[in-house]
């Protein structure tokens, strides 16, 4: 075992330690730590980053790791033994994710110095404790080697998001938003939990990797080489049900339709927290989970179709809502939903590598955009309305430059990171849609169409945002004289800007297709080190095999050149961007939403998603709950109270028998004896 793996648990432990330190500092109720606890957090995440990089290098060197660290419950059954444990699974996917999370977390910590400390926020130890726990939870989730551990940390991530979104708990908005985030994601996690129990009950294990893992067993069952208890369903149907149940948690966490409504509200939290949530933790957790157990989804056509459709629809749906928003962070929020829709689209259409790739690039450019937005917000004294900005370009050159890089990446303009990943997502969707026979192919194509259309909107809202914020003339005094930001804001922005511009080159799949040069590094990375037995069930190659050979629908890639689709999506993105620029990058831009007519209100109100969910809650769920309450109060409690009152009253009556007078007892004994004698005598026949 490599030394890096020995120290790997520290990756999770270090941020947790910083959480404890910050917590202790917060409880001490004095400023015992400089910078309100930021220093331990930064050091811890830096340490985790270094260790993650070490792990990644080790993985690149051909070693993978899957070990149980701690077994916390063992249940020995008749047929098998069920072990519940915490473990580490360090393969290319989790190593990559570790680096992303640690990097973004480090930068967010540094940025927080500028956003929180310099702005004179109070309660900083609480804030940094939350960040530390958030980071630790996400890291623990990433390295999970079984679904149960994933679930535990999944919930912890949700809890941390609640704590951090509600950081300003004295204002009216944040607590409500925090509760909403908590409850909506918990609604999804409910399904996840049911699915988790189902998986453990079916397979007797929740391991992700190895020959005993549940995706692999599922594959064997479908191939007819093994059998599991499927509770009366056909194995395909049952696995699909399980996959979809787990998907419920994914949809909640990754803010997919229809459980996306918490995410825009979550903008009430501090901006660095938003960056963390959107780029590396929380939202990413959902998609990562699907990628983690992709072997389980790859064998089920129905699950794939639903993932693809949900992803494609969410991508388009969220993009349209982002078109009309006035607040900077709201636009970014909807773009996040939309981008995670792309990842789901990729996963659903068999583009495992594409989804991972988009997860990677998105983490960087979305963190960049949020931190950039945070910089603008600092400058604007926490006014987030874009119509109050304008012309910030000249006054905040660093922010503008990095924000522009991020926007170009988000919109998918060549050669920035987002172009390569989004293009690959769409390309994979298209070729699998064309290549796959039957209805699944059609579904893929429909999802692709939605994703493609969303590209146009993405380009539009991205550059509408850029134009309104940075171009034109300042529309308020504040925008004319913004507050300056320090190194701790510009530093992270620059790092992320560099990454957002360049990470696309990690995986130049189209270039490889055209020229044959081996430049698809991420593909090779996810194929896994040669010779590692563990990777037999976790590599991209294996997933491709599953999709094509085990999946009944035989997902196949057609031979289509990458140029045309790339040109198509790039053209759409540029079109959207240019239109936005024409409309809004003028000295005195006006709101063009009125031209949308009736659609305007629909978009402003987010398709009345919240309204219909509230309507569902008040008009359907609440009466149902009322009925349940009535049943509970009258029927269940009635039975319980009835039983107790019957025994109570009968007891108080029967106790009168206990007169304390011996004669009465004797009489009862005598009569009882006589009765027994008569009964036995008659029964046995020796009486009469």
């Amino acid at each position: 075992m490599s030394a890096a793996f020995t120290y790997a648990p520290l990756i999770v432990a270090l941020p947790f330690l910083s959480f404890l330190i910050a917590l202790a500092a917060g409880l001490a109720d004095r400023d015992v730590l400089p910078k309100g606890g930021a220093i331990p957090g930064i050091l811890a995440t830096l340490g985790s980053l270094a260790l993650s990089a070490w792990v990644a290098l080790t993985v690149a060197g051909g070693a993978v790791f899957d070990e149980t660290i701690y077994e916390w419950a063992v249940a020995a059954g008749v047929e098998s033994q069920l072990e519940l444990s915490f473990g580490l699974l360090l393969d290319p996917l989790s190593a990559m994710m570790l680096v992303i999370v640690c990097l973004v977390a480090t930068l967010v910590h540094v940025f927080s110095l500028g956003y929180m400390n310099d702005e004179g926020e109070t309660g900083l130890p609480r804030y940094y404790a939350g960040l530390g726990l958030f980071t630790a939870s996400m890291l623990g989730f990433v390295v999970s080697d079984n679904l149960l551990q994933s679930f535990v940390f999944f919930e912890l991530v949700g809890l941390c998001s609640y704590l951090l979104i509600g950081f300003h708990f004295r204002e009216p908005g944040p607590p409500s938003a925090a509760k909403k985030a908590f409850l909506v994601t918990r609604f999804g996690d409910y399904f996840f939990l049911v699915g988790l129990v189902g998986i453990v009950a079916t397979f007797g294990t929740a391991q992700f990797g190895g020959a005993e893992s549940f995706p692999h067993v599922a594959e064997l069952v479908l191939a007819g080489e093994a059998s599991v208890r499927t509770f009366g369903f056909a194995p395909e149907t049952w696995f699909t049900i399980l996959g979809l149940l787990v998907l419920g948690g994914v949809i909640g966490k990754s803010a997919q339709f229809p459980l996306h409504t918490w995410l825009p509200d979550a903008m009430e939290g501090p901006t660095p927290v938003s960056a963390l949530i959107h780029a590396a933790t929380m939202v990413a957790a959902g998609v990562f989970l699907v990628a983690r157990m992709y072997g389980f989804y790859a064998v089920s056509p129905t699950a794939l179709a639903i993932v693809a459709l949900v992803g494609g629809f969410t991508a388009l749906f969220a993009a349209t809502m982002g078109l009309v928003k006035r607040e900077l962070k709201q636009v970014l929020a909807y773009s996040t939903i939309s981008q995670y829709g792309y990842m789901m689209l990729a996963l659903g259409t068999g583009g495992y590598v594409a989804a991972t790739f988009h997860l990677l690039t998105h983490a960087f450019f979305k963190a960049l955009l949020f931190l950039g937005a945070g910089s603008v917000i600092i400058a604007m004294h926490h006014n987030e309305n874009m119509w109050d900005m304008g012309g910030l370009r000249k006054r905040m050159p660093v922010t503008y430059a990095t924000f522009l890089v991020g926007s170009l990446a988000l919109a998918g303009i060549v050669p920035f990171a987002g172009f390569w990943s989004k293009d690959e997502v769409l390309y994979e969707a298209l070729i699998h849609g064309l290549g796959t026979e039957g209805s699944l192919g059609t579904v893929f194509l429909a999802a692709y169409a939605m994703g493609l259309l969303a590209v146009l909107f993405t380009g539009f809202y991205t550059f509408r945002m850029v134009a309104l914020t940075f171009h034109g003339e300042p529309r308020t005094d504040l925008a004319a004289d913004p507050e300056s930001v320090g190194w701790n804001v510009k530093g992270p922005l620059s790092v992320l800007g560099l990454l957002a511009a360049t990470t696309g080159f990690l995986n130049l799949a189209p270039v490889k297709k055209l020229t044959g040069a081996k430049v698809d590094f991420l593909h090779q990375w996810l194929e896994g080190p040669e010779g590692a037995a563990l990777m037999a069930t976790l590599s991209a190659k294996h997933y491709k095999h599953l999709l094509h050979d085990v999946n009944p629908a035989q997902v196949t890639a057609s031979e289509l050149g990458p140029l045309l689709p790339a040109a198509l999506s790039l053209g759409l993105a540029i079109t959207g961007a240019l239109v936005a620029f024409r409309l809004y990058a003028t000295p005195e831009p006006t709101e063009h939403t009125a031209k949308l007519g009736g659609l305007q209100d629909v978009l402003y109100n987010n398709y009345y998603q919240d309204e219909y969910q509230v309507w569902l809650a008040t008009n359907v769920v609440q009466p149902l709950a009322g009925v349940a309450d009535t049943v509970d109060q009258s029927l269940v409690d009635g039975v319980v109270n009835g039983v107790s009152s019957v025994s109570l009253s009968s007891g108080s009556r029967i106790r009168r028998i206990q007169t304390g007078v011996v004669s009465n007892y004797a009489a009862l004994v005598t009569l009882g004896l006589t009765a027994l004698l008569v009964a036995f005598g008659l029964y046995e026949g020796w009486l009469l």
Partner: protein
Amino acid sequence: MAVPVQWYLLLSAAMFCIGVFGVLTRRNALLFLMSVELMLNAANINLVAFARLWGNLTGQVFSLFTMALAAAEVAVGIGIILVLYRNFSDVDVTRATTMRW
């Protein structure tokens, strides 16, 4: 033998039931004690009668033990009755109802 065992059993049953009768109808603790003696004697008659029926001494030996037990019981019973009398100035069992609900 002349007297059938049934008659002895009948006698025993009669004595036993008279003992029960005493317990049921009287309220004097001393009468209780005597009634119990009657019942014990009824049991002894039974044992001895069966001993003769089977030509086996077990019943006789056993009734000997019963007598010993009866003596012990009377000793304790007298003690209890005296305490009862001391606490309630009476040996009426219906008055000693402290342990009632």
